[in-house]
């Protein structure tokens, strides 16, 4: 079937070309003789030319990866996405390691070890000695102090919330202080961090890409070119930022002096290709070594069939949820909310849109996150039960509600809404899809007035706090998510849980809160968490997904077999 199609298309197009006077015919014929050259040896040779002309780097033998949109900056203090560059150029004080069972733990990185005071307020980090930045400067405690200070003061800075809990952070942001009180340089290789109040997730925070450590001297000298001009953007990481042509490609070159040992890859070219079919064709023609299948969700089934041995996967660590605004009729009624939970066939949606790759979720913390709890109460698909609950609540004849679609959302989200609409119709609920442009959607949501919507929250760092506090931390938090959960006592507990020093107690409290919020109060419809899949070319060895909610990747540990 496929072959016939391509033949037919080829014939039609060739006919068109020949008939219309061999417009490009001369060129195509001339090139026909050397066909397959590009396919045979992958992207390496193709991109070599580009690398030569653009960044002065010979990219022969480099691995070729692809992104669907160019990054804004490699300065991670100014972006909340685009974490691939930070993952590879810089290191953080701590790292997350995922074992084969998908269980993650915090491990030392630039900080070799650390002590936490009994009250959970003081963290003392002992830094690794002999680490050098890519420009040859030594990594010392001063760089840590500088980095954290810059995060809170740099122009157009984001990610400041990662240090919210550090003593003196808000004073520094507001300008009433010049220094960050809570970060103290003890000696060249020791830093002491003091928190405002106990915050158990702090170590996890330190693994976030947003807290990558910069070189104080080089970064200060680079000014606003840091992250923009590859030559001045340095870190301690396994790769050096070597070239960037906007909308075309990014180039990373191996850091020979990397403190964990130089990477095996000589370098990486990251192509910027917006069109998903082009990405697919590039991969299949051997022009790509790595393809994030989240870019080509709809073609994933085909990839699994065609390249069963070339798929790498890991949990996405993000929860897709469906909201019900407590301020909108009739969602004040817990029976209605429970009916909604039962009326949506989440497994069917996961199957239809993602080929079942992932798992249906029943709470707040997705699979792969610390705090994920296998034993929580399950929600089952039960349209009859939903109807009964609606009747009990006095909505036996159903009601009309809004499904708020964000125009910038992916087609898959839109499709999910279309399916949900149909499923709700089956229990008598008339859900109408309303399309918003991105900014109106965001503003309405932040005003707490948005109707029901479906979205996904992916982990910024590995802790349940990052999820439950974001949505149910206090009145303001739940309002800007357009949930408007009303129980302040529960929210006080959510907030209080952040300070529980004993890890077991803390996780137990988070589990109890999840049970209360989702099962007793039916505060949202947990949908699913997904698996994140990559296709790798045959020559790629040792690629492992980074633990992270976002789709960035680390190239350290990869090698190419040739």
């Amino acid at each position, binding site marked *: 079937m496929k072959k016939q199609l391509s033949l037919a298309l080829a014939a039609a197009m060739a006919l068109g070309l020949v008939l219309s006077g061999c*417009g490009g015919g001369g060129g*195509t014929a001339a090139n026909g003789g050397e*066909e397959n050259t*590009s396919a045979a040896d992958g992207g390496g040779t193709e991109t070599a030319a580009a690398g030569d002309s653009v960044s002065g780097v010979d990219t022969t033998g480099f691995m070729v990866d692809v992104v669907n949109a160019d990054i804004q900056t490699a300065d991670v203090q100014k972006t909340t996405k685009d974490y691939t560059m930070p993952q590879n150029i810089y290191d953080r004080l701590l790292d997350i390691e995922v074992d084969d069972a998908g269980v993650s733990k915090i491990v030392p990185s630039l900080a070799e070890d650390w002590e936490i005071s009994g009250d959970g307020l003081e963290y003392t980090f002992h830094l690794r000695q002999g680490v050098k930045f890519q420009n040859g400067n030594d990594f010392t405690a001063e760089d840590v102090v500088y980095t954290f200070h810059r995060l809170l003061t740099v122009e157009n800075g*984001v990610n400041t919330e990662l240090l919210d809990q550090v003593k003196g952070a808000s004073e520094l942001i507001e300008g009433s202080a010049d220094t960050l009180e809570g970060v103290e340089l003890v000696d060249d290789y020791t830093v002491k961090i003091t928190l405002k109040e106990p915050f158990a997730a702090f170590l996890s925070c330190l693994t976030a890409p947003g807290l990558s450590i910069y070189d104080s001297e080089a970064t200060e000298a680079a000014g606003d070119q840091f992250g923009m001009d590859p030559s001045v953007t340095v870190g301690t990481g396994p790769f050096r930022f070597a070239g960037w042509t*906007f*909308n075309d490609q990014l180039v990373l070159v191996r850091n020979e002096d990397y403190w964990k040992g130089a990477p095996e890859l000589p370098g990486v070219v990251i192509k910027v290709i917006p*069109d998903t079919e082009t990405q697919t064709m590039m991969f299949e023609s051997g*022009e790509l070594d790595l393809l994030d299948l989240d870019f080509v969700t709809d073609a994933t089934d085909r990839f699994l069939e065609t390249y069963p041995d070339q798929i790498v996967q890991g949990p996405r660590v993000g929860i897709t949820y469906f909201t019900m605004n407590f301020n909108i009729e009739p969602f004040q009624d817990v029976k209605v909310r429970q009916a909604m939970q039962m009326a949506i066939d989440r497994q069917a949606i996961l199957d239809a849109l993602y080929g079942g790759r992932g798992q249906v979720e029943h709470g707040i913390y997705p699979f792969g996150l610390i705090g994920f709890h296998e034993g929580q109460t399950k929600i089952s698909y039960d349209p009859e039960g939903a109807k009964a609950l609606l009747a009990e609540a006095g909505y036996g004849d159903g009601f009309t509600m809004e499904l708020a679609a964000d125009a910038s959302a992916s087609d898959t989200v839109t499709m999910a809404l279309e399916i949900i609409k149909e499923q709700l119709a089956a229990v008598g609920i008339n859900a109408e899809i309303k399309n918003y442009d991105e900014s109106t959607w965001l503003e309405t949501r932040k005003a707490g007035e948005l109707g029901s919507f479906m979205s996904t929250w992916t982990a910024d760092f590995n802790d349940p706090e990052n999820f439950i506090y974001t949505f149910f931390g206090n009145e303001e938090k739940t309002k800007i998510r357009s949930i408007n959960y009303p129980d302040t006592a529960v929210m006080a507990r959510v907030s209080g849980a952040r300070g529980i020093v004993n890890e077991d107690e803390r996780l137990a409290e988070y589990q109890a809160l999840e049970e209360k919020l989702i099962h007793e109060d039916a505060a949202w419809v947990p949908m699913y968490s997904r698996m994140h899949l990559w296709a790798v070319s045959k020559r790629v060895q040792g690629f492992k997904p980074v633990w992270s909610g976002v789709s960035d990747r680390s190239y350290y540990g990869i090698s190419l077999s040739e």
Partner: protein
Amino acid sequence: MPQNGEIDFAAFFHNSLPGAPRAGKALSFIMDGAWQKEGEQVLSRVLKRIAISVPVLVGVVLAIFIMLRIVPGDPVTTMMGEHVNPAVIEKISREMGLDQPLIVQFFRYVANALRGDFGTSYRLNRNVTQIILDAFPNTVKLSLLAAAVAWIIGIVAGIVAAIQQNKLLDRLFMGSALLGVSMPVFMTALVLQYVFAFKLKWFPVSGFDSLRAMILPAIALGWNSAGSIARMTRSNLVEVMQNDFIRTARAKGLREQGVIVGHALKNAMLPVVTMMALQLSSMLSGAVLTESVFGVPGIGRLAVNGIETRDMPLLQGTVVFTTILIILGNLVADLLYNVLDPRIREDG
């Protein structure tokens, strides 16, 4: 016909239809050296044309400016996304001058634009002019190649169709030329890419770093214009062939093909300059799509970036820049045509 001394565009377009008598006149006009006498007139015409372009230019900037300012929502909030506190948003708004009255913002923008400064991109934190200038050469290369493709396909198809007027070959050639106009550009691009890069492997699937890589994008973009050119060539030739001087040429014993190709090309080349400028506008529209499909880092991509990331300065800069380009292109073509074609002067 022209009112207020300016050139009537519609009449101008009409006149740009190549006709044999005109070509003959143009030739004799140049050969006789008559254009020297016309020098002064041409100069005043040039000045007038430039003078009309200025209000259009201002209008274009104003139109874009207004359209982009009535976007719902606060641009800074949208641009910063989730992880930012309100104080930062306020600070950035102030820095970008968004708290100023619209009219102040407009004049500031125009003043900066006149100095070649289109502002700073919200998302990319860099100078929009620099981003555009970096991307510009790629779009120029793509457009020029595409124009070449369009002309080759268009003129050949047009000539054959005209010779075989209303016969099967006419329909076939016009049909295939029209195929490019009748598919969505991105589908044409995708199918070309699928067949010639993916299946036949004659070209790389994406990239724009070698002539070979540029061919497919150029065909995808040029084919779209080829249909228009083919139809124009055909209808012009059909007209030309009825003319006495062709009949004379034939009577003199010139072979038909020779007659047609010779005169047709001569006549088709005259408005080449004009058509080029006019095609520029359609090329730049099409480039938005072609560049996205083939991953060409050109100006069209910037416009898409601007839309997708809601980066107003980037979108605004790109649109203003391309529009200025088109106005300039038209101006140049117009002036060249003025020199080449005496009809306009006569009518004026």
